[in-house]
């Protein structure tokens, strides 16, 4: 019974993510439209907002690239379901691919074959965090190829300092121009190590637009980077305009004295995410 309920909730979350853009993203797009002074960029934002409304009303995917399904699980150490989560997630992705439908996007890099159901080696990818308690929170981030291709890692010399970080982020995002389908959400991961900086950047993308990092120095960098990127004039879809990014989110870890890893994660305007909360008694809720 729990099996069926949890899988149905996960399919529901995948459908919600593909078809309903979260309200914080819609609000940010509307605010950008209101501010926009270029008629060409305004036409892009109008088309995006109309597209989002059509997808929501018809419960159809908002973009033909329905992405690679990446999961973030906060698993309570006392949850009775820990051993079953991986199987449920994998089965839900296959089911959702058929039902919604999602585009089959997993390709074997050696054989160039596609299983046709978004399954595959290490796919769907699951990031695990153990937390206190007996509840489980599962978040899905379906991420398109166009924006993921614009994500990058820089191993900066620590001597460049915070100015060097700012310059690297702005130079990179501006050089992407229209390719990641702006206005984007930029996740900036600082420190840790090469893999950790990228992971922190991806986690930063998950945060709601309008929220700031709890620490003032990081929050200040978020605000400043957003302003600097938007001074570039790249604009919606790279046709020139006032809003190149909707938000910049920073996350950081302590670093090695010799290293300053910088992970830059780019998310397209279709910042799709949804989640499921699973309680110890087996009750589930789609978020």
């Amino acid at each position, binding site marked *: 019974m729990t099996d069926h309920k949890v899988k149905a909730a996960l399919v529901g979350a995948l459908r919600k993510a593909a078809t309903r853009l979260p309200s914080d993203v819609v609000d940010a797009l509307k605010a950008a439209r209101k501010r926009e002074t270029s008629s060409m960029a305004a036409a892009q934002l109008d088309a995006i907002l109309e597209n989002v409304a059509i997808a929501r009303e018809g419960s159809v995917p908002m973009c033909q690239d329905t992405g690679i399904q990446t999961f973030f699980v906060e698993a309570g150490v006392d949850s009775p379901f820990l051993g079953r989560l991986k199987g449920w997630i994998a089965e839900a992705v296959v089911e959702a691919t058929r039902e919604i439908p999602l585009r089959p996007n997993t390709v074997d890099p050696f054989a160039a074959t596609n299983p046709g159901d978004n399954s595959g080696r290490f796919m769907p990818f699951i990031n695990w965090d153990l937390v206190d308690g007996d509840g489980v929170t599962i978040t899905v981030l379906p991420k*398109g190829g166009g924006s993921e291709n614009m994500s990058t890692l820089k191993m900066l010399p620590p001597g460049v300092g915070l100015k060097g970080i700012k310059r690297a982020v702005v130079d990179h995002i501006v050089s992407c121009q229209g390719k990641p389908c702006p206005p984007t959400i930029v996740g900036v991961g600082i420190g840790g190590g090469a893999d950790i900086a990228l992971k922190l950047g991806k986690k930063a993308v998950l945060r709601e637009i309008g929220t700031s990092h709890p620490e003032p120095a990081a929050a200040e960098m978020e605000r400043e980077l957003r302003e600097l990127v938007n001074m570039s004039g790249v604009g919606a879809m790279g046709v020139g305009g006032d809003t190149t990014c909707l938000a910049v989110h920073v996350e950081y870890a302590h670093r090695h004295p010799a290293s300053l890893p910088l992970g830059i994660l780019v998310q397209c305007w279709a910042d799709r995410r949804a989640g499921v909360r699973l309680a110890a008694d087996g009750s589930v809720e789609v978020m």
Partner: protein
Amino acid sequence: MKRELTLPIDEAQTRELRVGDILTITGTIFTARDEAHLTMLEAHERGETLPFDPAQMALFHCGPVVRKTGDGWDVIAAGPTTSVRMELFEDRFLETFRSRIVIGKGGMGDKTQAALENVGAVYVHYTGGAGALAAQRIERVADVHWLDELGMPEAAWLFEVKAFGPLLVTMDSAGGNLYRDLDATIAENMKQIHARIEG
């Protein structure tokens, strides 16, 4: 300037279009990504007649998600794909088949720009990711070619569309190019951005 166009369209009309114009089009468009471009060019080189006339239609860089229904097809999502991949052969394609509107995402290179000037065509940008909006403006799938050989995303789909857009002219037949102009503006803005970071 906003314009509502009906296909087929003649060269005199497309030669009037300029960078910054925002179009909607009604009529028949065909999709072609890398493989369909090559398939059509190869058929032409063998002296074969194509099953449809690209000069009468707009070319759309798109790999749609399409679902088979009882007696036809239902388009689920059909946003544009990145056009620059087709730069390798777009000039030859346009000069051979004379489609006068190219719909895509992100712009194209110098060879295509020259072909647009030569043929009297325009490149128009369609909003990336707007797959549901595009599907809504597709009234009917008129036909599909090379589906078995090329697969769903690469096949040539003929769509009857109504008020398809917004399509922003970003490269025109008079040498206008929005991307080139924008590069200069952005380079100027970057100087100020760097000054602020260093200041």
